[in-house]
């Protein structure tokens, strides 16, 4: 009979107008006695179906309806805001490392602040501020970096002393602290109520909300969403939004056309206590003690404290519904280290009485960033999930960006770091996820230092040369599952252990990379760059050329054997991809893109190329091993191996030829190196990889050849002012803004995507400009190293942020690349950035609060000395992201 009753209840349509809704949602487990069934059947169709009634689903519904979309149905398997949202700690914190995350959190904070006024629903919003504690100097540096970012965004924030901490919070033991960061505008909310407030507003705007309705799968036809199947019937729709939280992975895999959403839940514990004898003030700042791995906020006069333990417990959601997740067991033994940390931080709490240990599962992603955007395989299938336990902080902003994405076709910020398409099928193995989230969750509290690599889920994609290189001392990093060499440790030399090597200062590999760079400059080096994404596009007639001419900004109608650097732009002229395309024949093209473009670029082209059997596109990434021969002697090595003339007359820059190397035939040799140094890229069918590598190394011996890694490559490309996509370039950067007008066919009278936007920029000027900075008074040995994201100051005014940096062994200086904007001093309005504006300024780069003088440059050094080099020979491209 009980089951019967439940089924009846599932027909209750959630309505804002229903005065009982608060009671229903507050006493979830006894709802059966208070709710009156109002069976409302599901609509047969809607424009948008959102699955998930947590903070994400309600935020998307809220923002979509605000933007004018009304035909929206939100489905929730259990009760609104009763999953992770209900149990989360309700801390709104803007202290984030990644810029777009910081912006989302800032927006969320501002949204929640006025939400109660807007909706009449009590959200429990209290501006308490937050204090992040540092027990070590390194932690303090990390906090200072965040503080710099917050300050230039206009978010009040200051670095304070332990004494000041004690003044702000009466219970804290400050004896082991070296400092702290205070963000006074951070807030606390009741997350379930925020979610209900968003639902209320959405509902008023016409969004239909149905509780106790589970989506079983999403129907897809011809690569587009057509509807959803639920346990209460079918709804036809054009858009589906998967906001199913920890169930998102499962839901993504439930349809015929699987959508990979790589996330995995872990159990997460926090403690609730009874009030203190003298109840804590409700506006007492929230404490984050990352070195103790805990957070502490006030809660109804007592405290709420949880953390991110070193040994997380992954959790399977398969076959578990919301109610089961709500009833997960407390595990005090597991919580013990966090309780110890809490009592060490606030010893006076010893006598405080325990109310409850809450087990609130959170979902984590492979790179600790949330997942947002449209599926690369199913159009109209959007995702917003995997919040890595920052759902409340991101909820508002993430919902807004996704709504913009759906309504406008793109969000108002660069969300590539969060884009679902940064992942592919390779990240969706359960085993991989399980292992990786066990690394990610503890990482929440670990120090975030430059050049950090994940240790789990490694050695998935490797080059055929992996073992050879590894035996020669290769140290590896991973990109999109592909192992790439950072540098080679010479025999007999030892580097620090992984944990000890974490530093914000000069790293232990400094001299190793220095000697690799030197070898690139003076002799020849070989770098395995097999991870790059490689597509072949060909057609029976001219379709390939015609279509590519429209989709790419540079002129691809070049003689066969030429290589063209070109952007793949969006309508706003921004880089969706930056690639090199070789014309193999009249009708076929070989396209090389950054490693992590494999999914995004494929989807972008698939969606825009005509569905025509005469035009084929193939992902040949796995078919070729790529060796980059860099250095002045590369030409000697190659000519000896191929018995073919390779001199610049026969093999000019930006050229592509199939030739034999050693015994192996059909090697695609291109005269590019992605660094501005002389040399060649060899694209080798994988079965020849070892042979060619051996031949190159043997032959190269007399020219002083050696292996090199990506760190050397990066140093070379940055000192040559090469931007690369994903790091410096993104969908919001145009060729005009980074000095690449020469890579755009504006004058050729051809239509291409982004043309109008570029023409307008050409006429009116640009609002930001890619600039190179040489640090002047920076001591490489003693000072903090720049990384990326450092604020740039011009004449004392904030003008932008760096996007990448490296030590230039040639200049013996640090080089930072970044964008300079021009804000009106009075109004803050963005003004056109001119060459004069760049050149006539005194610059400083802020590294963790310390400012270093810098010289700004708009052209690389090499071009000063090689005036006569033809413009189109100047390579201005580079790929990999750090």
């Amino acid at each position, binding site marked *: 009979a009980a089951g019967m009753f439940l089924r009846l209840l599932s027909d209750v349509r959630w309505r804002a107008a229903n005065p009982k809704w608060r009671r229903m949602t507050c006493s979830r487990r006894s709802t059966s006695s208070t709710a009156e069934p109002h069976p409302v059947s599901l609509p047969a169709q809607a424009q948008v179906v959102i699955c998930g009634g947590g903070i994400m689903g309600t935020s998307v519904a809220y923002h979509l309806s605000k933007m004018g979309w009304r035909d929206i149905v939100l489905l929730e398997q259990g009760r609104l805001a009763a999953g992770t949202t209900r149990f989360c700690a309700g801390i709104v914190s803007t202290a984030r490392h990644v810029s777009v995350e910081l912006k989302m959190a800032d927006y969320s904070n501002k949204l929640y602040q006025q939400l109660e006024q807007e909706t009449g629903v009590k959200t429990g919003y209290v501006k308490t501020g937050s204090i992040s504690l540092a027990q070590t100097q390194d932690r303090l540096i990390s906090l200072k970096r965040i503080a710099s970012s917050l300050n230039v965004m206009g978010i009040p924030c200051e670095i304070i002393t332990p004494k000041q901490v004690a003044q702000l919070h009466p219970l804290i033991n400050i004896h082991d602290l070296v400092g702290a960061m205070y963000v006074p505008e951070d807030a606390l909310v009741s997350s379930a109520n925020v979610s209900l407030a968003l639902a209320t507003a959405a509902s008023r705007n016409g969004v239909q909300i149905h509780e106790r309705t589970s989506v079983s799968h999403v129907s897809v036809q011809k690569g587009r969403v057509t509807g959803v199947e639920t346990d209460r019937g079918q709804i036809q729709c054009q858009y589906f939004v998967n906001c199913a939280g920890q169930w998102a992975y499962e839901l993504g895999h439930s349809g015929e056309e699987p959508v990979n959403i790589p996330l995995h839940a872990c159990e997460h514990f926090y403690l609730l206590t009874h009030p203190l004898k003298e109840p804590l003030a409700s506006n007492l700042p929230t404490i984050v003690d990352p070195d103790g791995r805990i957070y502490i906020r006030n809660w109804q006069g007592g405290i709420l404290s949880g953390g991110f333990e070193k040994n997380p417990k992954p959790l399977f959601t398969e076959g578990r519904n919301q109610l089961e997740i709500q009833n997960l067991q*407390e595990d005090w033994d597991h919580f013990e280290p966090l309780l110890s940390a809490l009592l060490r931080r606030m010893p006076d709490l010893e*006598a405080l009485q325990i109310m409850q240990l809450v087990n609130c599962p959170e979902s984590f992603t492979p790179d600790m960033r949330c997942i947002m955007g449209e599926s690369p395989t199913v159009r109209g299938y959007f995702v917003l999930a995997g919040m890595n336990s920052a759902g409340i902080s991101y909820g508002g902003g993430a919902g807004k960006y996704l709504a913009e994405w759906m309504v406008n076709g793109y969000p108002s910020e660069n969300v590539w770091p969060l884009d679902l398409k940064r992942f592919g099928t390779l990240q969706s193995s359960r085993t991989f996820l399980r292992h990786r989230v066990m690394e990610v969750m503890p990482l929440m509290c670990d120090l975030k230092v430059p050049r950090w690599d994940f240790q789990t889920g490694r050695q998935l994609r490797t080059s055929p040369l992996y073992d050879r290189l590894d035996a020669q001392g290769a140290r590896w990093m991973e990109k999109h599952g592909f192992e790439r060499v950072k540098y080679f440790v010479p025999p007999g030399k030892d580097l620090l252990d992984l944990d000890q090597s974490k530093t914000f200062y000069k790293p232990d590999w400094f001299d190793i990379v220095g000697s690799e760079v030197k070898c690139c400059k003076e002799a020849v080096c070989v770098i395995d760059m097999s991870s790059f994404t490689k597509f072949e596009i060909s057609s029976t007639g001219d379709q390939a050329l015609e279509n590519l001419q429209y989709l790419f900004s540079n002129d691809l109608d070049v003689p066969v054997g030429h290589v063209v650097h070109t952007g793949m732009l969006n309508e706003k002229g921004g880089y969706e991809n930056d690639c090199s395309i070789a014309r193999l024949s009249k009708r076929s093209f070989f396209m090389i893109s950054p490693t992590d473009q494999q999914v995004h670029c494929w989807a972008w082209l698939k969606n825009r190329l005509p569905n025509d059997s005469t035009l084929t596109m193939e992902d040949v990434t796995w078919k070729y091993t790529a060796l980059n021969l860099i250095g002045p002697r590369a030409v000697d090595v190659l000519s000896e191996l191929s018995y073919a003339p390779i001199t610049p007359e026969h093999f000019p820059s930006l050229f592509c030829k199939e030739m034999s190397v050693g015994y192996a035939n059909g090697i695609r040799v291109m005269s590019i190196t992605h660094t501005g140094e002389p040399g060649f890229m060899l694209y080798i069918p994988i079965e020849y990889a070892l042979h060619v590598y051996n031949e190159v190394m043997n032959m190269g011996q007399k020219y002083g050849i050696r292996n090199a890694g990506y760190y050397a490559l990066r140093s070379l490309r940055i000192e040559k002012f090469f931007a690369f996509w994903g790091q410096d370039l993104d969908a919001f950067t145009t060729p005009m803004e980074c000095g690449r007008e020469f890579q755009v066919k504006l004058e050729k009278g051809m239509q291409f995507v982004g043309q109008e936007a570029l023409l307008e920029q050409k006429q009116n000027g640009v609002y930001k400009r890619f600039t190179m900075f040489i640090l002047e008074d920076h001591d490489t040995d003693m000072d903090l190293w720049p990384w990326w994201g450092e604020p740039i100051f011009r004449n004392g005014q904030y003008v932008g942020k760096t996007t990448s940096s490296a030590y230039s062994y040639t200049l013996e200086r640090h080089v930072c690349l970044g964008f300079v904007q021009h804000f009106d001093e009075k109004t803050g309005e963005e003004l056109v950035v001119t060459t004069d504006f760049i050149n006539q300024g005194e610059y400083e780069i802020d590294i963790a609060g310390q400012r270093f003088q810098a010289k700004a440059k708009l052209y690389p050094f090499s071009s000063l000395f090689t005036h006569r080099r033809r413009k189109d020979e100047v390579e201005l491209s580079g790929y990999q992201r750090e």
Partner: protein
Amino acid sequence: FYLTPPQVNSILKANEYSFKVPEFDGKNVSSVLGFDSNQLPANAPIEDRRSAATCLQTRGMLLGVFDGHAGCACAQAVSERLFYYIAVSLLPHETLLEIENAVESGRALLPILQWHKHPNDYFSKEASKLYFNSLRTYWQELIDLNSGETTDVKEALINAFKRLDNDISLEAQVGDPNSFLNYLVLRVAFSGATACVAHVDGVDLHIANTGDSRAMLGVQEEDGSWSAVNLSYDHNAQNEHEVERVKMEHPKSEEKSLVKQDRLLGLLMPFRAFGDVKFKWSIELQKRVVESGPDQLNDNEYTKFIPPNYHTPPYLTAEPEVIHHKLRPQDKFLVLATDGLWETMHRQDVARVVGEYLTGVHHQQPIAVGGYKVTLGQMHGLLTERRARISSVFEDQNAATHLIRHAVGNNEFGTVDHERLSKMLSLPEELARMYRDDITIIVVQFNSHVIGACQNEE
């Protein structure tokens, strides 16, 4: 005064011994994987003894714990001799003949037992000849008696126990020309010892028990939890059957004086024991032996003292109660221990502690606060203790040591409290016996695979 954890460990581990049954072809074909044993003295010197040996002429393994009283002489003698008596009782006629012929013709004897001894477990060199002669007399009688029937283990155990006790009694009555030996046999006879012996052969487990040591089987339930099955009955005043038995054996007139203050004749805790001729011999015999005995014996108030209400001896027997158990795959281990352990720990806790130790899995009840009033500090203390309990497992390489650590160091939460452990172990000799008894433990681990296979064959 405070012992550091390493000091505590060195005390606890001083007597620990482990034996692993050797493998053949990488396989252990025995139903026993091995055993851990240990003992912790409270008396000085310790009065407990232990023995373990593999029968070489028959199959099976023998393990036993012996709790001496009124000195350690009897326990020592029983620990040296009992297994030979059992082994001989189990031998087939042909083997007995072969052995007798070898002795007769001065050839090398077939080895009967392979002992598994800790260096501290000693055998008396002086008495070995005497003991051997008694044993030889026993097997000669067995040869003469040749019943032609196959030996029943239960019967063999009972016979061996009774025969050894009889020999102890006789040797004391006869005396020995060597004054040292003469004194020794008297000390053996006038002191006492309980014995709890296990004989394991394939799936057949026999426990022969005399006195208040105890054998307990550790059984793993299907849900992984541990339960205890008793494989012996204590022979003491708490055992109604035993009290009944004693009363049956004596006239009704003595009914009231037989058991006083839970002791036999108001004196002896165990109701069955080896030695203790003061409860077995007639008053005349006792007086004669004491008077003709060496001066030391004569000066000893205890030996001269006749128990009150001593009318119809013997009051005490060494005859064991034998329990046969067919091992099942869920029977994971056997604990033999003297009463020093059972006084401090409930058998259910023993089963859990050993079971968790052996499997390395800790079925600690998860803590739930529920409606209780618990402060953060209390919870923290409790969690730290639970953590210590887990870590203490890894300190011990020996299940018996681990059990002793719990027996001595357990606090009210059932976790090992180092402070308590340190206090208990640093008690001066004269006080130690007041707080704890000698503890001797053997933990035998069974081979579930072999047992499962045997079971299937049957």
